[in-house]
């Protein structure tokens, strides 16, 4: 990303998570995985689940019938983020509003449902209403349709850095003048087949099977939810009274691996900053699903930014979203540590890649 351009500000936050549907920062209380009841399994299985709620009770007029839960959550999270940003859509040019969504699995619940309809009725008897809702891009499309947003509508994925990629792609649209405002969303819904995949791949934490506290657990606790943030060029915020800035994004990059993480991270930070490394107050660590206690990101952050800097460790819930968890890492870090000043948002997937975003926390 080109340095020395007007920064992009995060002005609104919305989310649907185990904390429920919320506008603004999340007041993080103790969070333990909940027992899965959506499908049967031999013995109890646990994950970080979104408690059932009625979307229309949160966003009046919202009809989510026959949508994948991921689409429904994207609609709610985007509405809450716009509300939090104080944006009145009727007063802006909606053809200049972009939607950028990151997901790993897309609308996997309705994809399973489509397969089940094929198993029951044959491939000649599948459901025409379900089919388009299986597309990974359906949640972002619904966000544009519901809010009447006619700017670029993009769905991206990256195994490790989907959320970071979505934020940077949105910032890119704003910098290039292809949109005036962007809603960035990232998340996934947990389904039977994805949970079983984690289980068969032997990735699950013991906390998925019993009530071990999360802090002592090793392994991965799958999670679900959608986070949304509103991005705007900083100079536009002055036009709106009562606008708030959570953070400014000045630059960022992500890439695949090929070298040890500490080498590529150092290299990329030098590239972003043009050789000078500023004094960071904070390093926010994200992750790719590795256990929090053994996350290499925090160690790496110390190596890069030095001792004496506040390190915010990866959040266990956001880790459970793997490559679509970045927005939750950022929101939960901002919620839990009332810090301000220059910050480095850093994610690694060991030697499989890295992401680094330079922020100014407000």
């Amino acid at each position, binding site marked *: *990303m*080109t340095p020395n351009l007007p920064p992009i500000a995060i002005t609104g936050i919305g989310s649907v998570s185990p904390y429920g549907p919320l506008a603004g920062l999340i007041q993080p209380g103790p969070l333990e995985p909940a027992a899965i009841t959506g499908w049967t399994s031999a013995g109890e299985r646990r994950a970080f689940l979104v408690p059932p709620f009625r979307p229309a009770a949160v966003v009046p007029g919202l009809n989510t019938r026959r949508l994948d839960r991921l689409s429904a959550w994207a609609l709610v999270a985007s509405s809450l983020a716009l509300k939090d940003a104080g944006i009145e859509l009727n007063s802006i040019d909606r*053809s200049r509003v972009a939607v950028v969504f990151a997901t*790993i*699995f*897309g609308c996997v619940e309705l*994809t399973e449902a*489509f*397969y*089940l309809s*094929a*198993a029951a009725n*044959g*491939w*000649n008897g*599948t*459901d*025409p209403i379900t*089919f*388009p809702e*299986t*597309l*990974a*891009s*359906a949640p972002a*499309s619904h966000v*544009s*349709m519901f809010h009447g*947003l*006619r700017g*670029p*509508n*993009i*769905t*991206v*994925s*990256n*195994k490790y850095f*989907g959320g970071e*990629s979505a934020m*940077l*792609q949105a910032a*890119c649209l704003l*910098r*290039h003048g292809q949109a005036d405002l962007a809603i960035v969303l990232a998340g996934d819904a947990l389904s039977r*087949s994805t949970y*079983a*995949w984690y*289980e*068969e*791949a032997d990735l699950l934490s013991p906390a998925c099977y019993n009530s071990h506290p999360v802090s002592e657990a090793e392994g991965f606790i799958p999670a679900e939810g959608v986070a949304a943030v509103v991005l705007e060029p900083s100079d536009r915020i002055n036009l709106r009274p009562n606008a708030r800035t959570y953070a400014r994004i000045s630059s960022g*990059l*992500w*890439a*695949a*691996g*090929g070298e040890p993480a500490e080498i*590529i991270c150092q290299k990329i930070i030098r590239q972003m900053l043009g050789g000078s490394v500023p004094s960071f107050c904070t390093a926010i660590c994200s992750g790719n699903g590795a256990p929090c206690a053994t996350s290499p990101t925090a160690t790496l952050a110390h190596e890069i930014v030095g001792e004496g800097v506040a390190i915010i460790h990866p959040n266990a819930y956001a880790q459970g979203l793997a*490559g679509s968890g970045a927005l939750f890492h950022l929101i939960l870090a901002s919620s839990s540590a009332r810090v301000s000043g220059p910050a480095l948002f850093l994610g690694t997937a060991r030697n499989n*890649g890295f992401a680094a975003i330079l922020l100014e926390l407000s």
Partner: protein
Amino acid sequence: MTDTHKTVVVTGVGIVSPYGIGMDCLQAGMLSGQSCLVRTKDDWFPGFDGTTARVCGLPSMADASRPEFSRTDQLAVIAAQDAMASSGCDSSTFREAGIAMASTLGGLTEIDTGIAKDPGPWYRRPGGLSRAASYPFAHVADAVGNHFGIRGPRCAISVACASGAMAIALAANMLLDGAAPMFLAGGSDPLCAFTLSGFNSLQALDPNPCTPFDQNRKGTNLGEGSAVLVLETLAAATARSAKVLAVLRGWAMTNDAFHTTAPQKEGSGLADCIRLSMEMAQVSGDDIGYVNAHGTGTPLNDSAEANAYETAFRGRNRPIPVSSTKSYLGHCLGAAGAVEAAITIMAIRSGALIPTLRLTNPIESPGVDWLRGKVKRQPLPLAMSASSGFGGNNTVLIFGSGLS
């Protein structure tokens, strides 16, 4: 004066299509009017009776045949290899390159109804876990990157049938932002029962070879393939004395914000997208010599698209030449925008306006010159490729033979 650091050029084009691998066989096939659409019965699932365009005889590649490489991944890897070869560079040149690859299916070809009925035993089957690993659409970007040892930023894009074109647009944005020195950008999608069944359920398939833009059109046909472009700045291409195949002069993305599957009937979203792309390219409607249309052959798409061209090219001094090359290759879904970008570049380079096949009774649209019959030969300095998709996504790319 051209800013070479802000000019995006195409220095390689790779493609795998029902014609085979590479642009030469694609060009020979299309310029001779050869259709790849074949009618089959019970081919994809019991009861299927329709027309598809299939890629036959994929080469055996050691890594590309690994169990975690889906057919989507294999097509993408082959197209990327062809693109790199066409750029005149070996894979080491691409070590720090970025990858923007699109797909709507990801690894759906590798899984079946069993995974939904009882996933545990399905995963425990030999190769089950590896096959499932290819399911997320992000895997197609990883497949290309891992196969060639490319370690720049990777991004997969899935925006229904505009995916391949949008991957190219987003790669151009990232290139100009300095995210990587060059990009491999394109799309890949195979044929599979899931999508054939889905389009069949929507009654969007013509059982016979499709007739885009015909008043009697009855639907689309699905195809498969992959196309990948090598994008770099003109400055970088000049520095390594690369051959510039085309200049990406303009690009734009919009959304109809209208309906899950139907386009806005006046084609306003696509018309806006065309206008924005021409603004970026700093050209007028009169400058565009040819539009490679989305042209699926479905009643709703083609009429909305015709309306979009009427709106976007209003005031042009002669009708805008338009054709749909889906009449040759079918609809390659997430790959379609990239495949059609490659065809548009081929049209520019060969000076050939490619007609729509089987178009006998075109939609009445006075501002549009529906290309049919024989290939028209003429210099083509600027051409446009338009893509649209479910959910109202539109992407338009403008390619030129040279600088303004």
